[in-house]
């Protein structure tokens, strides 16, 4: 078997296995790096190697050197993969190795600072591309690392909703209860750190949002969370905008029902009877004016009351009289003035 799979962002997977050795499958991954400017040592970083070793080392083995044209080659032992839920967990971890390669690169940037970053006394911004057409910048300084996100949206409504969200993000981040979080700032114009970058990267309609990452935000277990939040910030904002639009739509539909009810009550009072909702012209009107159907309790009470009345009328009980009365003493029912029921 020799298959090539492609994912968005120019990610390529190569799966290969041979008939003579069906136990092992070779998986090679090629992914564009976050930054082309940061030089990497030959092969993959230490962080990526450690991540791979953490995924069941008896099943997954790192092959060095990697296949030609790929950054990483793994040998998977299919016979050792367990059945059931455990297998899906392992497969998920293998599938997320591509994200691990990129996040390890960002982790290296957040934790290391080199002299190559300075350019004429200013710290040179590093352009990172996690998702195509959505680059962001990282500026490394001795005291902190600043991540700057140029925001672009397709519709004006999205821009305004996102801008309102960024204002709230700034307000929440600057409050006393949230002192420990990275400082967040939004501006409609490019920040000074990005001066000198290409115009196509700096032309936006949603402004620029920046986070100041301090050393305490990248210590220990927080490093993974910080890296994950930064890499998925664009997706987070777009999801929030989408959910807000859905919320506005639901609310408008609910309000429409209430407004329409008022008008139809006004028109029904004039007519004096209930209006057929179909004639009103809107399929979304659920209840205008309707008489409620009697429920079981009401029916039971009516039945008991009728029985009491009957008992009051016939206090003396004669055995077999009921059948006699039903057969000989009932009044014939007339269904219409022009039709008569036949008497037995």
């Amino acid at each position, binding site marked *: 078997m020799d298959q090539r799979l492609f994912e968005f962002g120019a990610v390529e997977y190569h799966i290969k296995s041979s008939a003579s050795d069906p136990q092992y499958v070779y998986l090679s991954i090629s992914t564009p790096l976050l930054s082309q400017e940061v030089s990497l040592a030959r092969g993959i970083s230490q962080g990526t190697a450690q991540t791979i070793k953490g995924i069941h080392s008896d099943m997954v083995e790192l092959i060095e050197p990697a296949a030609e044209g790929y950054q990483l080659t793994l040998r998977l032992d299919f016979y050792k993969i367990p059945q059931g839920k455990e297998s899906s967990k392992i497969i998920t971890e293998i599938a997320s190795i591509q994200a691990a390669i990129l996040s390890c690169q960002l982790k290296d940037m957040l934790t290391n600072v080199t002299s190559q970053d300075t350019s004429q006394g200013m710290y040179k911004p590093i352009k990172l591309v996690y998702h195509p057409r959505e680059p962001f910048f990282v500026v490394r300084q001795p005291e902190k690392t600043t991540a700057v996100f140029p925001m672009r949206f397709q519709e004006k*409504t999205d821009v305004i909703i996102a801008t*309102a969200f960024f204002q709230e993000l700034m307000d929440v*981040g600057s409050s006393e209860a949230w002192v420990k979080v990275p400082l967040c700032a939004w501006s409609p114009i490019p920040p000074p750190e990005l001066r000198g970058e290409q115009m196509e990267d700096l032309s936006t309609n949603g402004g620029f949002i920046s986070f100041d990452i301090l050393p305490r935000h990248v210590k220990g277990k927080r490093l993974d969370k910080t890296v994950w939040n930064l890499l998925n910030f664009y997706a987070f904002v777009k999801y929030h905008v989408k959910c807000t639009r859905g919320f506005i739509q639901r609310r408008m539909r609910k309000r429409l029902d209430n407004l329409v009810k*008022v*008008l139809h009550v006004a028109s029904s009072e004039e007519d004096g009877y209930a209006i057929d909702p179909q004639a009103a*012209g809107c399929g979304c009107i659920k209840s205008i004016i309707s008489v409620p159907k009697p429920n079981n309790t009401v029916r039971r009470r009516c039945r008991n009351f009728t029985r009491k009345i009957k008992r009051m009328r016939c206090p003396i009980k004669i055995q077999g009289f009921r059948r006699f009365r039903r057969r000989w003493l009932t009044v014939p029912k007339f269904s219409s003035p022009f039709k008569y029921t036949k008497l037995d």
Partner: protein
Amino acid sequence: MANSLRLYLTCIRNTLEAAMCLQNFPCQEVERHNKPEVELKTSPELLLKPILICRNEAEKCLIETSINSLRISLKVKQADELENILTKKFLRFLSMRAEAFQVLRRKPVQGYDISFLITNYHCEEMQKHKLIDFIVQFMEDIDKEISELKMSVNTRGRLVAAEFLKQFV
């Protein structure tokens, strides 16, 4: 309710009570046709002078009357961009479902956010004072709904921002 809003709505109500005296009038141009004259504006003798009631520069109401129809156009206040898009979205949403309201116009008059068209047939089917109550109540409800929508959007944004920043702690 603020004093200026109450005066504004009272003025609109009184004007509508005077203007909503409609009667059936067949079209003078085409035989066997019956059209709302306020829309066509072909015969000036059938039209009354339009009345413009302004609360301030941003809020106003235009009432155009004719012998058999009445058109009310409203301009709703929009303080910032968020209110602007919420108002546009909501009123466009209502206009696209105009058949549910019967008296609502599908497209607002130019320069206004929403328009109503009331004909003599509507006055025959519905009570006049109830119609006026509906229009005035609609204006109050729109203002209230836009304000609540804006507050809800900001509250959602705040909660989402707090959840995002919580992950850094």
